[in-house]
Every structure is written in structure tokens, then in C-alpha cells.
């Protein structure tokens, strides 16, 4: 009898941690701005112990301790913060870094979302790793729903319209394939003229823009007021359909990060041409 009791106790001690799902870590360090935004959206703002220099949304994120840049975070700073969990992303953080953090015995989660479609499931994964599966599911559902209704609601006027999204006017850097922006355009039924480029943010030839004559040009928000900066470029493009029809729009940078604000970003793009 006692032997059975002892066995049950021993099994229980092993089973207990397995039965208890991931506990929400008390101190989380985020190494990507979009992850930071998602953490705040999941209500985990006060559990964030550290962010990168570029995590600037929401406002509270700027007040969190800084562990360095996205491509060169400081391991020292990070370890000194004594985190229970570090979240890296596949887009921007050096791959080796996750290994180095793990070698210090700190649990590391890799946020894997490269496209808009992967965002809801990545959020769910993150949610269960952080012990907030219901909130993550709620957020993921909202985003997923917005994406699918947007996809279904193509306005006939905007179908097949040629567009270009300018990240920086001089030198001309645009959003190419593999970016959230390109995904958004496909979702809205637009045709990104830079979609056949070889890299996500290529330096694009102004000549090509003149030749392709897009119907709309979007300028994403930079850290500077983009309107005066874009004048030189728009002058060269004065023969292009978008410029002639006044379909040049200055939009925000919401689509630059795969996070909760992408939905607003997509709505913003859609509103311009509808």
C-alpha cells in the first residue's frame, strides 16, 4: 500500500509541472518592435522588462529599459535584466543571438511570422508560450477576421490597379516581395509594380517607375516629413498616371511592422483609392 502511495506521489510531482501550462513569465525581453506591440496588445505591458532602441509604440514602450539595436542587441544588458523569457523574431535579429541567449539558460521564443497570413498563428503560438492563450486567440481572431473580410470585399474600382509603395524617395527604395506591404496590396487586389524585384526593399530604378506608370503611389512615413523630400522624385515622375491623376498618398508606417496595427494600415491603403 505504502509503495503504491509513494509511486503516486512521485508521479504527481512529475505530472504537476506538465499539467500546469506555461506560466506567464514575469520578466519578458522583446527584441523586435512588432513583438513589443503585440505584447502590449496582449495586456502584458507591465511584464516587459526590456525592449530595443527601436521599440517606439506604444508610448510606454519607450520608457522600458533598452537592450540595444535589433541586429546588435547587447547580451550583457539583456542578461543583467534577469529575464524569464526572451522573444526574438526571424526578421532582423541575428540567428546566432537566440542560441547565445539560450546558452545562458534563458528560455527563448522565436516569433515566426514573415507574411500577413502567418501573423494570426504566430500570435497564437506566442500566446500559449506566454500563458495567455485566450487573449492571444482573441487578438489573432480579430486580425484574421479583418484580413479575410478585406479579401472578400474587393471593390471593383481598385482591382488590378498598379501601385507602388515608396519607403524612401532619394535614393528610391520601395516595398518589394516578401513584405507585409506587398501582402496588403495583394489582399486589396492591387498590383505592386515592384513585386518582381529580388529583395524585400530594393533600390528601384526611377526609369522603371516612369515606364510602368503606376495608378497610385504611396509614400510611407519615415522619421522625417516625407512631403518635401518627395518633391524631387515626383518632379521626375510628373508624366506618370499616379502623379497626373493626383493619386499620390502619404500614409503612415503601420504596415512596416507585423503587429496589431497592420489592420489599420490596410484600411488606410484601401481608403485612399476608394
Amino acid at each position, binding site marked *: 500500500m505504502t509503495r503504491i502511495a509513494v509511486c503516486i506521489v512521485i508521479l504527481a510531482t512529475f505530472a504537476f509541472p506538465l499539467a500546469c501550462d506555461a506560466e506567464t513569465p514575469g520578466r519578458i525581453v522583446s527584441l523586435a518592435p512588432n513583438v513589443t506591440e503585440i505584447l502590449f496588445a496582449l495586456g502584458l505591458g507591465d511584464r516587459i522588462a526590456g525592449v530595443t532602441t527601436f521599440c517606439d509604440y506604444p508610448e510606454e514602450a519607450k520608457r522600458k529599459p533598452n537592450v540595444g539595436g535589433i541586429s546588435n542587441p547587447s547580451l550583457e544588458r539583456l542578461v543583467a535584466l534577469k529575464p524569464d523569457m526572451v522573444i526574438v523574431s526571424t526578421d532582423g535579429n541575428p540567428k546566432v543571438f537566440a542560441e547565445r541567449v539560450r546558452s545562458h539558460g534563458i528560455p527563448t521564443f522565436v516569433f515566426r511570422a514573415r507574411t500577413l497570413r502567418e501573423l494570426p498563428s504566430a500570435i497564437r503560438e506566442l500566446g500559449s508560450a506566454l500563458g495567455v492563450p485566450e487573449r492571444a486567440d482573441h487578438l489573432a481572431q480579430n486580425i484574421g477576421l479583418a484580413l479575410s473580410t478585406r479579401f472578400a470585399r474587393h471593390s471593383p474600382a481598385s482591382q488590378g490597379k498598379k501601385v507602388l509603395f515608396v519607403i524612401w524617395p532619394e*535614393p*528610391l527604395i520601395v516595398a518589394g516581395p516578401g513584405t507585409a506591404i506587398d501582402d496588403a496590396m495583394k489582399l486589396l487586389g492591387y498590383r505592386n509594380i515592384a513585386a518582381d524585384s*529580388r529583395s524585400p526593399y530594393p*533600390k*528601384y*530604378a526611377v*526609369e522603371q517607375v516612369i515606364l510602368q506608370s503606376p495608378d497610385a503611389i504611396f509614400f510611407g512615413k519615415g522619421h522625417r516629413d516625407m512631403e518635401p523630400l518627395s518633391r*524631387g522624385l515626383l518632379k521626375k515622375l510628373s508624366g506618370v498616371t499616379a502623379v497626373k491623376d493626383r493619386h499620390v498618398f502619404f500614409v503612415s508606417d503601420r504596415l512596416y511592422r507585423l503587429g496589431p496595427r497592420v489592420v489599420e494600415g490596410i484600411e488606410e491603403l484601401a481608403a485612399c483609392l476608394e
Partner: protein
Amino acid sequence: MSRVSSIFFLLLAILVIALSLLLGSHSINPLHLSAPEREILVAVRLPRVITALLMGMALGTSGAVLQGLVRNPLADPYILGISSGAALSASIGLLVGVYVFGTFSIPLSAFFGASLISAIVGILSWRRGTILPERLLLAGVGLSFLLHAVIMLLISVSSQEGIRRTVLWVSGDLSLADWPLLPYGSVFILGGFFLSVFRAKALNALLLGDEIAHSLGFAVHRERLILFVAISLMTSASVALGGIIGFIGLVVPHMVRFFAGADNRLVIPLSALYGGVFLCGADLIGRSVLPPMEIPSGIVTALVGSPYFLYLLSKRNILTVSS
């Protein structure tokens, strides 16, 4: 050089320039110009080709003059630290994001940095009432190291976007060529060029040594200062227009001397012309290889220039500055 080869090379120059205007990510047939093609020619390609010609002219001339001035065949205008000065101030502009002057902002800051550094280098090499060639080289190299370190420092603390734009600019970016910049660029570059051409005889004399030049009737100190100022103006303007494009200042004068001898009255104008043509060609290649992306011209000149230079080296001992 015979009549025939001179005409051949001249025709080659004209051909390269014409092709630069007509080829690129899209080929234009001059006999059937559509409206967008005309736009491209006038708004994009023409200023770009003119910028390339001006920059190549500036670098070719500066290289030829500098090689004579310091009596060293390996001299290149960037050895003077001028390019590093320009790169540093342009990088600061790009990374901090100062665009007060609109499209002029980055070129202006590049020009300012370049001029400041050449003034410093000139002052550092000033001894006994003149610029000493040996001090010039050492001061330039020393300052270059310092400035490069500062640029690397800036890059290490910047965002990805900032770094990318800086690296693109520093590797030579002719896509920023624009009509408003050209008048200012031409003033400095053509000014420096004509200054060098008029002092070409003095440069020939300087190559023989200070004492001989003096006995031939040239005011050695003044000639050196004038030529140094010419080099500074041309190089600063060139870097301001399109970033750092290497090899032209080093290789083109040697190629010209290989075909036309070492008389600077010929070498200087020919280096100007073929420097321009070379850069035009390099830019054409950079634009046409992986459209619609553009390979920075500085990379193309290095990739094309260095093997050719090594080839010339193996053919015969061309590393002389005087015949």
C-alpha cells in the same frame, strides 16, 4: 599616338555616351520615342550621364594632377582624405536626417566635409612656405583612417535604414543625379579642370624636381598650391554629386599615359575625357546587369578597374609618372 587610334578612341567615347543614354533597364530606340521614353531620357538619363561625365572628368583630372604633384604613381585623389571627409559629413546628414536644403542637403554637406578636410590636410602639409608632397600623402592617409573610424562608429549606432542609405551613398550612387545640382557641380569641376589644363606645363616641370622647375622659371610653391586647390575643388564636387567612386583617379591617368605618353598637356585633358567615359560605361553596366536593381557604380569601377590595372601592370612597367 597615331591619328587613327585617336579617332578610334574618340569614336569609342561617343559610342559609350550614346549607349548610356539609350540603354539601361529599358532600351530606347531614338527613332521611335514614346512619351514615357522621352521623360526617361530627359528627367533621368541625361542628368545621370552628365553627372557621370563630370565626376569622371573631375576624378581623372585630379588623379593625373595628383600623381604628378606628389611624384607617386599610386596616388589617387582619395588618398588625401577628401573622400573620407565628404563621406563622414554626408553620413552624418543621412543618419541624422538633415534635409533643410531639400535635394541639396546631402551634396552640400558632402562638399562642406570634403573642403574642410582638404583645408586641414593642406595646412598639415604646409612647411617652409609650401605644401610638401610627402607630408601631403601622410597627412591624407592619417586623416582618412581617423575619419573612417568615425564613420564606422556612426554606422554601428544607427538603424538598419540609416545604415543602408549611408552604405548606398558611400559606394557611389548616381541615381541621385538631378538637374538642379549640375550647375554647381560643373562650376567647380570645370573650374578645376581648366585650372589644371592651364598649369599643365608647370606640372611637367614639377615632375623634374623642385630645383629644376624653379630654374625653368616656375614659382614652385604657388604652382603646387594652385594645383592642390584645383584637385580639392574637383574631388569635393565629385563626391558631393555622387558619392565615392574609386579607381578612376588611379587607373585612368595610367591608361592614358600608356597610349599617349606622359606629357601632362595631353594627359590631363585625356584623363578628363576618358575618366568621364569610363564612369559612364561603369554606370551603364551597373544599371543593365540586374534590372530593375542598380549596382552602385563605385563597385563596378573597382571590379572592372582593378583587373585591368593588374593586366596593364603585367604587360609592361607602366608604373611611372614621367616618361
